[in-house]
């Protein structure tokens, strides 16, 4: 990446806004976000990550799903946490996602499009960046 000036940074930002909608913004693709702070990793987030990848490959839907890591979602009690945004379904955060739960997430939530019982957590707060962009004061 070449060093930027104001104009190129603004242009880049506009492009990145389009490229990286957050999980609460609509998109055509399914998005999976795995909480990978120290807390999440210690609780087994890497196992969940591997299992999600494996299951997605087994269903042959790699091209329909984007996976990424993020930091701590703040829900330490229920780590590992995974957020899933499937087009046409509410975006939800799942807690206590062991490898076994991860496998079920792919089959039930992503493929069969039904929520899984007993693992959904409340979103802790409004996304103030999105809120501000919509003119929130």
């Amino acid at each position, binding site marked *: 990446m070449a060093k*930027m000036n104001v104009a190129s940074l603004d242009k*880049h930002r506009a492009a990145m806004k389009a*490229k990286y909608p957050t999980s609460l913004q609509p998109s055509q693709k399914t998005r999976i976000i795995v909480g990978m702070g120290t807390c999440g990793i210690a609780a087994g987030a890497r196992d969940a990550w591997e299992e999600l990848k494996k299951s997605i490959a087994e269903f042959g839907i790699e091209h329909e799903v984007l996976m990424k890591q993020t930091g701590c*979602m*703040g829900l330490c009690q229920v780590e590992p946490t995974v957020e899933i945004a499937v087009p046409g379904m509410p975006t939800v955060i799942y807690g206590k996602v062991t490898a076994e739960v991860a496998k079920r997430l792919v089959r039930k939530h992503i493929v069969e499009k039904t929520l899984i019982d007993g*693992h959904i957590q409340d979103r802790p707060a*409004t996304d*103030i960046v999105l809120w501000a962009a919509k003119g929130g*004061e």
Partner: protein
Amino acid sequence: MAERQYLLVCGGEGCQSGKSEELFLALHQQAEALGVKNDVQIIRTGCYGFCEKGPIVKVMPSESFYRGVRAEDAKEIIAERVVARKDVQRLLYRKEDRLAATTRVPEGGTYNKQFRIVLRNCGVIDPENIDEYISRDGYAALEKVLFTMKPEEVVEELKVSGLRGRGGAGFPTGVKWELTRVAPGEQKYVICNADEGDPGAYMDRATIEGDPHSVVEAMAICGYTVGATKGYVYIRAEYPLAIERLKIAIRQAEEFGLLGKDILGSGVDFELEIRLGAGAFVCGEETALMRSLEGNRGMPVPKPPYPATSGLWKKPTVINNVETFANVPMVILKGGKWFSSIGTEKSTGTKVFALTGKINNSGLVEVPMGTTLREIIFDIGGGIRGGKRFKGVQTGGPSGGIITAKDLDAPISYESLTALGSMMGSGGMIVMDEDDCVVDVSKFYMDFCVDESCGKCAPCRIGTNQMHTILDRITKGEGEEGDLAKLEKIGQAMTKASLCMLGGSAANPTISTIRHFRDEYLEHIRDHRCRSGSCKALVTFTILADKCIGCGLCARRCPVPCIAGEKKGVHVIDQAKCVKCGECFTACKFGAVVKA
């Protein structure tokens, strides 16, 4: 087919009320009865908090939030919400349901008690990808500052915002930057204090791991404002992932021209380096931190001179902690006035807390200042684990104190916590229940201070040891009359005469627990009794003959073993051998094992 709806019924393993299960079944029955079973999915979730107003039903995608829902309401919810697609008005959560009338919260239109400024990107973006940070208005504040604001204007914006140091002491950030800006000197420095050391605190780790660029951007803004071209992040080596992500962030920012020479073509230079701390608690004290950064032994030096005029290598230096910096880009982008509208009059903005201990939903929470402890512990935290009784909450770590049930409704601010004999501190919040012994907790913190005292000044070096000795003796049932007076006297001397705040505040947990729980201390000293059963030397476990059915579970769990008895006969504990681990007490399903 109409858009599918989802009913999320709160629950969770820790949930003591069976009401939500009943509601869950009733909703299923009604959906079946009204023939809309396929239009709606009804599921149970983890704990939503708000337990006093539970059970909660959240409806997606309408985002309706119903509280205090009973099984009798199921029919109406299905008929109105699912079939007719209208909200059941009387069940909706309202603004009046908030406890703290004093909190000024910006209207977000939701029931959420949390408001995330510092953690705005944590759990949202990939922290190793600068593009995602940029996509969420990252580095827009730096751009704004470099090209449209004079340094004086940045300082003014910070002053208007009312932002105060989040490391604990609460010094106004705008004033700190101003003092450094006007201090004479060619070379100045910016330091980020990421030497988070309070037991149970991990706010700064999570912030750097989740959103390292917010700190990088804020430090560059600070560099421009005060005229520093060089910055250091002093971070403890125990945080390898945070260090790794910070390194990646700095490298990416350099590649983009957001750090280094001539940032964005503005002619402003700012370089950033990471320095690792070896994990000495005292190095979180700013003067000790700077000595350590210089390559010397990390020991505090008396103030004044303050870092603003003579800091790192005796040059004017701004030193702020991670959370303070993470606030800065939002202050610049949204304006100081916006920031000051959140929180209370003197403590503006939000505070991140690491909520831990005997609480159902432990985790990282960010709330507007002025939120009450009750809201944090019961509404967000979901209350005390196992339905036990709340005893107190320790804020401010080894420098703070305990806050008890009678002060749960105090709105949180720098001033209110100090008035309650604790302090804001960096944000550790450890919740205790009836099973925690205050003497034992005080001993734990004093033990920590004994280990971490640098030894430079006598009040801290000797005082912490003396206090620890007395506390230790009390927990062993060897306390003497007059011990409390001694503790208070030594504590006073340490508070007055210590060189830095480590010693100056080390007595706080003890003094504050004596203040609130004098009777418990006296019980230990006079009656050799620990009511919570934490002080092993003062507890005996016995088996009640009339309740023991002779299942033998306690004997099997006993690690010594020291429990004997025939099958189906009464069991007995050999007190001479008992190590008081409490396994039998936890194991017994019949309440036959008692501790006293």
